[in-house]
């Protein structure tokens, strides 16, 4: 590991995890110190009119707060630890969100306890609108601070390996195909989630009848997401085509529009903000796993990035086809 990478990881841990955790911890310590002055059950949920309608033992507030913030900080650090390259947009958003979330929750949740101190009956607890709004505003400020403090991932060593243009005879014809898939783990997590949501929707149908239909939307969306985790790729004289197993969506770059190709190393969250079909200004990504990817540059400057094995050979072929078309 280079010194640069070590510095990056240290800053990432400080801003992405230590800062949000410190805020949540401070709030939790305060809440725990108040345990003696709070009723046995505190209001944790308010109806639309402002009257409390959900109650729980007070320790649930610091417990939930720490759990959520620790979980989000862990996701932030884990998904950005291997990030590289100067494209930091998404890295910054994630780091800033960790601090925004922590501040908003800490002020909102712990603040909702303030009006319940020395209260005999939690049913008279005031609506927590004020602490929630204060929390959201403070969260924006702390999030903005984290945005500016967020570390810039150092460039990876294998960012731009040279692509060898495949040498083709004048009449030779070439075709390259591959199937790009997400890791089975990611697919399994999404599938499990989808099944759980489907079961929930079915159970709710028994309780609510037809009114439960919105609950079927989430599993349908997840099924569509699942279908975009396997893509068939083809390169030939007509250009580059990537299509998901269902045939749609489909990304094409016609041969006449190809400027060139390169092999890049992709970190899904840091570079594209996640997995699947991703859009960024001037960039489209078919991002199924971290690691090597084929990047096709179009003549208008836009790029299409597809994570796939064998990206080196694919780039060589795209280069050869671009060369034939005068690029």
């Amino acid at each position, binding site marked *: 590991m280079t010194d640069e990478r070590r510095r990056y990881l240290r800053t990432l841990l400080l801003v992405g995890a230590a800062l949000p955790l410190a805020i949540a911890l401070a709030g939790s310590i305060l809440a725990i110190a108040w345990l003696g002055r709070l009723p046995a059950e505190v209001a944790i949920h308010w109806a639309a009119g402002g009257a409390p309608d959900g109650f729980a033992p007070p320790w649930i507030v610091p417990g939930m707060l720490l759990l959520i913030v620790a979980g989000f900080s862990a996701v932030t650090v884990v998904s950005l630890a291997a990030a590289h390259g100067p494209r930091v947009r998404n890295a910054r958003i994630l780091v800033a969100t960790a601090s925004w979330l922590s501040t908003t929750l800490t002020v909102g949740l712990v603040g909702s306890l303030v009006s319940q101190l020395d209260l005999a009956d939690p049913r008279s607890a005031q609506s927590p609108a004020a602490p929630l709004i204060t929390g959201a505003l403070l969260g924006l400020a702390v999030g903005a601070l984290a945005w500016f403090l967020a570390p810039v991932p150092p460039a990876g060593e294998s960012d731009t390996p040279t692509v060898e243009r*495949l040498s*083709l*005879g*004048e*009449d*030779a*014809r*070439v*075709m*390259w*195909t*591959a199937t790009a898939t997400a890791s089975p783990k990611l697919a399994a997590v999404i599938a499990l989630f989808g099944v759980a949501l489907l079961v929930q929707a079915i159970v709710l149908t028994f309780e609510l009848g037809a009114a439960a239909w919105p609950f079927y939307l989430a599993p349908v969306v997840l099924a569509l997401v699942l279908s975009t985790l396997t893509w068939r790729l*083809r390169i*030939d*004289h*007509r250009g580059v085509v990537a299509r998901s197993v269902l045939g749609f969506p489909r990304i094409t770059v016609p041969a006449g529009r190809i400027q060139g190709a390169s092999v890049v190393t992709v970190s899904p969250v840091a570079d594209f903000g996640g997995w699947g079909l991703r859009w960024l200004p001037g960039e489209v990504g078919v991002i199924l796993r971290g690691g090597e990817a084929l990047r096709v540059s179009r003549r208008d400057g836009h790029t299409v990035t597809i994570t796939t094995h*064998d990206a080196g*050979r694919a780039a060589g*072929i795209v280069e050869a086809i671009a060369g034939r078309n005068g690029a």
Partner: protein
Amino acid sequence: MLLVVDPGSPAPLFQQIADGVRAEVIRGGLREGSRLPSAKELAESLQLNLHTVLKAYQTLRDEGLLDLRRGRGALLTAQASVLGEVAQEVPLLVARAKAAGIGPAALSALIKEEYAR
């Protein structure tokens, strides 16, 4: 899978496709259960007659490497794994031949002779 065919080469086009598939199996890019593109897709991509591609697929089927089923496409059989395993022993043989100053023509002749026994 990478396929290159050259109409200017002396080898017949269907042979070039079959060679390309075999080379990909040996490389590890295709294995048992891998699905080849449909003959129509391959013909369009390589700008070849459909019959040329079908002939290549039939050649591979006759070798036991490909399972052709209507509606299920072209799937590589277990023979693909066997071919891959056998291919792993080739570099050693070639390295020994090279070290001994035996050229490719002489080594192929030796292999053919062994087959004829």
